[in-house]
C-alpha cells in the first residue's frame, strides 16, 4: 500500500494500538531543557521508578540562560535554581547534559541537528513546541507537555492519535531577498494560525528542495504556528551532505546502512493526503507580521487589512490586536519605526542566518536609536561566527553579538523588549507580551530584520540589495 513519508515513519514506531483509542508510539530521541523537565523528574521520583532509556535523552540549558557573561553565576535566583535543578537531575539519572559552559550548549533545536542527534526516520520529542524543527530531516518531531515528558522518561513511549495528512507544495524560483522565513510566513498568512491543526504537514516542491538544511529547519520550525502536530521534508542529498561527519551521525558501515534506509523515506507517488495546498514561489515577497499571531502577516509593500476586510466574527480579535500593536488598520507597514532588532531563536539563529546578515550589513552601521541583538543558536554557531570574522562585522555595524540561548524570543531571561517598543524579530511568535510585557513584535526574516536595523524602520530589503 502506498504511504506518505509521515506514515512510513509512524508505522515503524507503533508498539500497539488501543481499540477506539490512540496508539503507543515509540520515541527514538528525547531532548530536554530546564523549563519543562523539573516536574517530570519529580514525577518519576515520586513514583519510585527509573528513567527507562537515559541514553536516548539529551539535555541542554537554553530557555532561561543569560546571553551575557555566561561564565558568571546566573543572577536571577529562580532561573539559577531551574538550571541547577537540571544539572542535578541529569547527574542523578545519567543523562548527557550540554549545559552552560559546554562547547555544545545551545538552543535545543539548533544543537540536535548540528550534532547529528537528529536523523531521518526518527521519532523525536521535546517539551517545547518548536520541536517541529527537526522534521526538516525527514523525522516525526513534535512538542509535548511535561506529563508527556514524564511518560517518555518512564517508558520511552507516548500515546498518540495519528494526525491527518497535509502536503504543502511550493514550486518555482524565489524573488530576490526572499528567504525560507518569508515562505513560511506567507503560508501562515494564507492558511492562518490554526490552518493545519490536526495535521502532519509535509513540505514539498522544487522551492523546498532548493532550500539548505538551515532554510528547511526554519520552515518546519513554524509548522506549530499553523497548529500542525509536526512538519516534515523528505530527506535528500542536501540532507545527507549536511549529516555526513556530524558528531553523532552514523559512521562507516553504519552510515551506508542508514543511508540505504533514509533513501526510502519519501511519500509514494500515489500516497493520499487529506489536504493539499499549492503555492507559487514567485508570489512570495519579503514578509512581515503586523498583528499578534503569526498568521497576521503581509508582504512588506502591502497595506494592513482595513476593518471592513475582516469577517465580522473575527473583528473583535483583530481590533484587540491592532490596539495592542498601536498600528492603524489599512495603514502601510513599511516605514513603521522600530526600536529593537532581535536576530536569533530556534527559527533563525544558525550560521547561515548570521552569514546572510553579516554579508548584508558589512560596511553599514545601525540607525541611531535602534538596539540590535544577535543571539547565536549555539556555542558552535558562536564559535563559527568568530572564526569567520562575522563578529567583527557586527561590532563595526553596532550590533551586539551575544551568547547562545532562547533570549528575547520569549523573554524568560533578562533579554526583554520594554512595553510599547517595537521589535523586528526573526523569532516565531508575535503574541501579546511574548518578548516582554507590552512589547510589540514584528516577525520577519533575518535580512528584513537587518535592513530595519540599518534604516531604523520597516524596509523592503530587496530595494537595498
Amino acid at each position: 500500500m502506498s504511504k506518505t513519508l509521515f506514515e512510513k515513519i509512524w508505522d515503524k514506531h507503533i508498539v500497539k494500538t488501543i481499540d477506539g483509542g490512540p496508539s503507543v508510539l515509540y520515541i527514538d530521541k528525547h531532548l530536554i531543557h530546564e523549563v519543562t523537565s523539573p516536574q517530570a523528574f519529580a514525577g518519576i521520583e515520586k513514583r519510585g521508578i527509573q528513567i527507562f532509556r537515559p541514553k536516548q535523552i539529551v539535555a541542554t540549558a537554553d530557555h532561561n540562560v543569560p546571553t551575557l557573561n555566561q561564565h558568571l553565576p546566573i543572577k536571577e535566583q529562580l532561573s539559577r535554581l531551574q538550571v541547577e535543578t537540571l544539572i542535578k537531575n541529569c547527574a542523578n539519572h545519567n543523562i548527557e547534559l550540554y549545559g552552560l559552559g559546554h562547547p555544545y550548549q545551545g538552543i535545543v533545536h539548533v544543537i540536535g541537528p548540528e550534532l547529528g542527534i537528529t536523523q531521518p526516520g526518527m521519532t523525536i520529542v521535546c517539551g517545547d513546541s518548536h520541536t517541529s524543527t527537526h522534521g526538516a530531516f525527514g523525522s516525526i518531531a513534535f512538542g509535548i507537555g511535561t506529563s508527556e515528558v514524564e511518560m517518555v522518561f518512564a517508558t520511552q513511549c507516548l500515546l498518540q492519535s495519528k494526525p491527518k495528512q497535509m502536503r504543502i507544495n511550493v514550486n518555482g524560483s524565489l524573488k530576490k531577498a526572499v528567504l525560507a522565513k518569508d515562505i513560511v510566513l506567507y503560508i501562515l498568512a494564507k492558511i492562518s494560525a490554526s490552518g493545519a491543526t490536526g495535521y502532519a504537514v509535509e513540505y514539498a516542491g522544487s522551492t523546498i528542495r532548493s532550500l539548505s538544511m538551515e532554510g528547511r529547519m526554519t520552515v518546519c520550525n513554524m509548522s506549530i504556528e499553523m497548529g500542525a502536530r509536526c512538519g516534515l521534508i523528505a530527506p535528500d542529498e542536501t540532507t545527507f551532505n549536511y549529516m555526513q561527519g556530524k558528531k553523532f551521525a552514523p559512521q562507516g558501515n553504519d552510515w551506508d546502512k542508514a543511508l540505504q534506509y533514509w533513501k526510502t523515506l519519501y511519500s509514494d507517488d500515489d500516497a493520499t493526503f487529506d489536504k493539499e495546498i499549492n503555492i507559487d514561489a514567485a508570489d512570495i515577497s519579503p514578509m512581515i507580521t503586523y498583528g499578534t499571531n503569526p498568521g497576521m502577516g503581509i508582504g512588506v509593500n502591502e497595506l494592513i487589512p482595513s476593518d471592513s476586510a475582516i469577517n465580522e466574527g473575527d473583528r473583535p480579535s483583530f481590533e484587540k490586536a491592532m490596539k495592542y500593536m498601536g498600528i492603524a488598520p489599512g495603514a502601510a507597514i513599511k516605514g513603521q519605526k522600530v526600536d529593537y532588532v532581535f536576530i536569533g531563536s530556534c527559527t533563525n539563529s544558525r550560521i547561515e542566518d548570521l552569514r546572510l546578515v553579516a554579508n548584508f550589513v558589512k560596511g553599514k552601521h545601525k540607525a541611531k536609536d535602534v538596539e540590535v541583538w544577535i543571539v547565536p543558536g549555539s556555542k558552535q554557531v558562536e564559535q563559527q561566527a568568530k572564526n569567520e570574522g562575522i563578529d567583527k562585522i557586527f561590532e563595526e555595524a553596532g550590533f551586539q553579538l551575544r551568547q547562545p540561548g532562547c533570549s528575547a524570543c520569549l523573554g524568560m531571561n533578562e533579554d526583554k523588549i520594554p512595553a510599547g517598543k517595537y521589535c523586528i524579530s526573526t523569532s516565531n511568535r508575535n503574541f501579546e507580551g511574548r518578548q516582554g510585557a507590552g512589547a510589540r513584535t514584528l516577525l520577519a526574516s533575518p535580512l528584513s530584520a537587518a535592513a530595519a536595523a540599518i534604516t531604523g524602520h520597516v524596509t523592503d530589503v530587496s530595494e537595498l540589495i
Partner: protein
Amino acid sequence: MSKNKISIIHSGFVPLNIENVDTDQIIPARFLKATTREGFGKNLFRDWRYENDDETKPKKDFALNNPKYRGEILVAGKNFGCGSSREHAAWAIHDYGFRAVVSSFFADIFKNNALNNGVLPVTVSESFLKKIFALNEDATISISLPDQTITIDATGEKENFEINSYKKECLINGFDDIDYLINIKSDIEKFESARSI
C-alpha cells in the same frame, strides 16, 4: 500523578470571547521558572487581568475580574491554547479552579495537556459557542462526560461533543496515560528487541 475524576460538571461559566488565545496569555513565560506544578492559578491570564502587573489594579473589563462570572467552566473563542507546549497553561487553568474549557476549536498540544491534568476540553460548534456567549451572567451550563453532551440549562439546548473512548474512560476513572504505559513495558521491550534485529 493521580488526576481528579471528571464526570458531570454543572456550573456557571467565565466567558472569554477572544480567538487564538495563546498559552503565553494563559501563563506568561516569566512564571515558568518554578520547579513544581503548584500555584500557577494566581498568575492565570496575568497580563490580561492586571494593569502593569499590579495585583491591586485588576482590569475591570476582563471577565475573570467580573464577580458575576463564576464557575468551573471557561468558555473561549476558537483556536484556544495555541502556541507554546507549556503544560503550565493547563496547570494554571486547573489550579484556578476550572474543570472544563469550552471552545469551537482547540490547539493540539494544549488539548493533550488539559486531558492529562483533569481539565476537559469540550469542542462545540461555532453557533453553539455564540449562544453561550449571548447568555446572561448568572446562566449555568451542564457538561456530562458519560453522555458526551453540553447543555445550556435555562433553555435545554444541547450539543454532543467528541472524545475518544480511551480518554473518556481515563477521565471518568482518574487513570492516566503513564499508568497504562508502565503496565505494557514488556510489550515495549519486545518492540525494541524486534527492531534491533
